[in-house]
């Protein structure tokens, strides 16, 4: 089967050619079909090379050095920060804080902003479709400070229940934190509208963009979020670096989170003065090479075009959902293709997701099986686990078809 050339929105041959891992065979003659990008994306050679080149020619510690390498490294690292700001539609790179990952970005807000601003009894609204990273930091806070948590419900077809959202907003939340796109259901939430409503209700808004920034054109300035978090490793970038965007006035008022080198202006034995933004929140040697890699990932994604990537994934998820319908005994979770990104979680009535994933793996097809760090939404649907296929710019319609064929093989084995 070939891609209908009328449907092709990106040069898939070119794109695939940039990802070295895609030429790997899982066993002789069995090529890798990587359908686990929601867990982490593969990396194009541009990103791998940018980091190698950095280590081979510029490597130095940043910010305080006068020698050539230190100056070059500082410029490389800080220009990555500028790229991030531009990529998500933010004017000033002072508002871009580098963290280890999206999880740490959310924890930073929970530790610094929330502990300085929330008190016992204050309400935080989350949703039932959150990743553990946007649940557990708030549970820890709730235990420690007695803030209350409430969860927007999810409908049977995997959308946020907007009635439930409106009702909860009526209870005067101080913070509303929700995912831009669910990593289990694939649901893309109406974040701009939700942000507006939350602001009208007087709340600060944090958005978990870990699944959105890699896959959709995202303009955080336009959305109007107060905090926005994501990870490089899901967007063609390296592990070890994530991003927190924060509204400047909030960041200015927040106390520092971690203490150490780089986040200070001055230290005496008994006291310290915090540094300016964004360094105030970056303690110790930052992920420098990882910043360089993230910058290269953004250049790469931009060269392909986020719109094209999004369209390409729409095409794949559309095909996937269509073809899943024909497989007997499969149930798919989440909304229809027009409300979702390139993620399909499904289950068989009588075959465990682990077995599905394992058999697919023996055919070179990498999917994920488990709770995908979203146990509450699994519990909601009465499931301990699902099998999840997730797409990215390098996946093809043929790969979707191979997955479907693989599912028939699974059924055969268990028949």
């Amino acid at each position: 089967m070939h891609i209908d050339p009328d449907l092709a929105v990106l040069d898939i041959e070119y794109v695939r050619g940039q990802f070295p891992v895609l030429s790997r065979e899982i066993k002789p003659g069995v090529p890798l079909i990587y359908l686990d990008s929601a867990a982490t994306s593969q990396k194009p050679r541009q990103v791998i090379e940018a980091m190698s080149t950095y280590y081979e020619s510029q490597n130095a510690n940043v910010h305080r050095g006068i020698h050539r390498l230190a100056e070059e490294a500082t410029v490389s690292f800080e220009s990555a920060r500028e790229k991030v700001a531009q990529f998500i539609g933010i004017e000033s790179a002072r508002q871009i804080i580098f963290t280890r990952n999206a999880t740490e970005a959310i924890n930073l807000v929970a530790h610094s902003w929330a502990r300085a601003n929330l008190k016992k009894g204050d309400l935080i609204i989350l949703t039932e479709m959150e990743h553990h990273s946007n649940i557990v930091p708030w549970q820890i806070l709730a235990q420690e400070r007695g803030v209350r948590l409430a969860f927007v419900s999810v409908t049977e077809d995997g959308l946020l229940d907007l009635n439930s959202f409106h009702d909860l907003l009526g209870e005067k939340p101080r913070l509303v934190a929700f995912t831009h796109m669910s990593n289990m259901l694939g649901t893309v939430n109406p974040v701009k509208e939700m942000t507006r409503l939350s602001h009208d209700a007087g709340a600060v808004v944090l958005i978990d963009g870990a699944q959105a920034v890699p896959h959709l054109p995202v303009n955080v300035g336009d959305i109007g979020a107060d905090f926005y978090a994501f990870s490089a490793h899901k967007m063609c970038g390296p592990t070890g670096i994530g991003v927190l965007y924060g509204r400047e006035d909030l960041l200015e008022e927040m106390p520092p989170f971690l203490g150490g080198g780089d986040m200070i202006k001055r230290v005496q034995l008994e006291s310290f003065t915090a540094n300016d933004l964004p360094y105030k929140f970056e303690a110790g040697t930052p992920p420098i090479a990882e910043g360089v890699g993230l910058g290269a990932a953004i250049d790469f994604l931009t060269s392909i075009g986020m719109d094209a990537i999004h369209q390409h994934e729409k095409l794949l998820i559309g095909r996937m959902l269509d073809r899943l319908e024909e497989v007997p005994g499969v149930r798919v979770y989440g909304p229809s293709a027009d409300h979702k990104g390139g993620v399909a979680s499904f289950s068989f009535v009588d075959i465990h997701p682990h077995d599905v994933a394992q058999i697919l793996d023996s055919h070179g097809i990498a999917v994920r099986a488990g709770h995908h760090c979203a146990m509450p939404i699994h519990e909601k649907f009465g499931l301990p686990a699902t099998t999840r296929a997730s797409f990215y710019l390098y996946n093809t319609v043929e790969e979707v078809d191979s997955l479907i064929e693989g599912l028939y093989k699974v059924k055969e084995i268990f028949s």
Partner: protein
Amino acid sequence: MDDLYREQIIDRYKYPVMKGTLEPNDFSYEDDNPLCGDRIRIDVRVDDDEIVTEAAFNGTGCAISQASADLLMESIVGKNLNEVKGLTKEDILEMLGIQLGPVRLKCALLSLKVLKASVYGLDELEEELAQI
């Protein structure tokens, strides 16, 4: 057929021979693997010499966890408790006859963990479990 899913495993999964519950029993324990929801309960009866006379498991989960529970229950009947306590990861893998990655290993070993939890006293247990 896929290597991992040797006929025996699928067969045991579909037609377990040791599935059920024993009431009353001498030892009984239940636990799960939150990662995938696999859940196993194990019931054991022993005679005065601490020889296992009957064993049964109940539960839900993937083929590997269920088949290994079935194989394990079958293997302990006639063994004394010290022999049961001496069972290792390798014994389970040998029964299954396959190689497993780190995640699937947890599926395969769930029944062994539950079995040990049932036959050990609680102090001994922690120490022993750390070694599985």
